[in-house]
């Protein structure tokens, strides 16, 4: 059994170690000769790079908006889903489909819906919307908004399912007792449901963080490969794949780690997996 555990760790430890090593060299798939150790030079350059700070700000904004939206939607939907009804099967399908459907494909459908690139029957209409939004928020805003919409659409329903599992884990007696003690549904929600759901919400937030980081494919597609609003992950990918600057790409990616670690620490104060007592 233990070898299996070691395998799991090895699978993850090796790439991380590789990445750290790469970020300390000038590794590039296009350079002649082997990589040369350069110490922390990559990090130094990164910190001086305004493009990086812009990407970071965009990433954080993107995270904050989508995560909040997903959480609010998710809680609402979970509460609705918790109620038994005859339409439950249909609703569950609606919840699972966006998430189960290949993201690479649905993103095209969204692209087609929101930014029709050809003269189609409704391009004029969507074009007007785009110009209106870009006019207010600056060029590329509509595209970026599309990315967020897409991420919320795809992730919101998963958050709902996740929180539903959390709701189901709360003993019903607690809700029943709350009915005896509180006057309004809103009171009950704030005093009982929300605090009990908090650990699951923390976990959902973290999952949303990581998927949002990972959603570079979505951004890539929706903005048609043009980077107007850079997101850290997207740019790293672009560096690695399009220009072969693996060392720089590794540096960009690793720059996310402190952020993630911070998120983890904050959220784990809420949700502690150590709580499980060994049998």
């Amino acid at each position, binding site marked *: 059994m*233990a070898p*299996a*555990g070691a*395998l*799991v*760790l090895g*699978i*993850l430890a*090796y790439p991380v170690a*590789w*990445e750290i090593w*790469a970020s300390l060299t000038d590794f590039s798939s296009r350079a002649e000769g082997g990589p040369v150790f350069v110490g922390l030079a990559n990090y130094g350059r990164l910190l001086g790079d305004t493009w990086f700070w812009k990407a970071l700000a965009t990433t954080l904004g993107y995270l904050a908006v989508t995560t909040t939206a997903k959480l609010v939607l998710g809680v609402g*939907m979970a509460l*609705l889903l918790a109620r038994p*009804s005859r339409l439950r099967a249909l*609703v569950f*399908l*609606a919840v*699972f*489909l966006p998430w*189960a*459907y*290949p*993201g*690479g*494909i649905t993103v*095209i*459908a969204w692209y087609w*819906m929101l930014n029709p690139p*050809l*003269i189609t*029957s*409704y391009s004029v209409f969507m074009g007007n919307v785009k110009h209106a939004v870009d006019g207010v928020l600056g060029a590329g805003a509509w595209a970026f908004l599309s990315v967020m919409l897409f991420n919320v659409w795809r992730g919101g*329903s998963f958050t709902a*399912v*996740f929180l*539903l*599992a959390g709701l*189901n*884990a709360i003993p019903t007696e607690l809700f029943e007792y709350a*009915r005896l003690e509180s006057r309004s549904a809103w009171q009950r929600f704030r005093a009982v449901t929300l605090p009990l759901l908090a650990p*699951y919400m923390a976990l959902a937030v973290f*999952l949303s963080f*990581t998927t949002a980081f*990972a959603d*570079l*494919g979505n951004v890539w597609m929706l903005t048609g490969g043009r980077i107007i609003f850079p997101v850290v*992950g997207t740019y*790293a990918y672009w560096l690695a*794949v399009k220009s072969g600057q*693996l060392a720089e*790409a590794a540096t960009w990616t*690793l720059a*996310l780690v402190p952020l993630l670690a911070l998120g*983890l620490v904050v959220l784990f104060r809420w949700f502690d*997996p*150590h709580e*499980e007592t*060994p*049998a």
Partner: protein
Amino acid sequence: MVIEKRWKTWVFFYIPLAVFVVGTLFPFYWMLITAIRPDAELYRSWRAATNTPFWTLQPTLEHFRDLMAKTTFPRWLWNTFFIAVASTLISLFCGLLAGYALARLRFPMAGTLGTSIFVTYLVPPTLLFIPLADIIRNFQLGNTPWALILTYPTFLIPFCTWLLMGYFKTIPKELEECARIDGATRFGAMTRIIFPIAVPGILSAGIFAFTLSWNEFIYALVFLSSPERKTVPVGVVSELIRGDIYFWGQLMAGALLGSIPVALVYSFFVEYYVTGLTGSVKG
């Protein structure tokens, strides 16, 4: 159910539910309409009197025919299926053993190991992407299905392990002890008693792994280059968009067809999936 006024039920339950369902499913409806809309209608002017953006009067299967005849779509389907099944099986196998070990065996660091596996699941795949690309290049696996079959488990195994570990914890350990007294070895008790009971958990982990592999886009885009080796998500996107020309009808037809297996798997196993998820979270 709790007694409630009827208008309240509508305002706080049915209407939000309807808005949600329509909002979620609308993109799929749009895909479907695009896929069966004749080209002439697709490119008709917004102001044309006959414009019907939300439905079509002359549904056609032309795009589906083109997809089958003019592209290697059936081939993509097979590739995706093969890759998804293989990587799911590998991940499930490792996840079962590792999950069981972490849930049951008391060895030093078991707790820490469990937590770190959970944490690694949360590590963004971006972090793993670049080194994996390097490994694939070194082993010259590029443009073969093995490139994906071996890389997908990097994110599938931690998830399967975590989910199954949670599920195993919900199974009383007495069942296993009883089996061992009844004459089974530890391994026998695991395979004859624990695994059969864990079927809902195993299924949901399997479904999850299968879906993720089927849908995976980035690795498939980078590691596979020849058209006949591609998977559905990549094939549809890269072969049906040529430069600035989008074959919208075929694209949407491919999107619909290519995801039928996943949709089917889900509709069959939704209940199992939900119990699996709930069980593991409770554990």
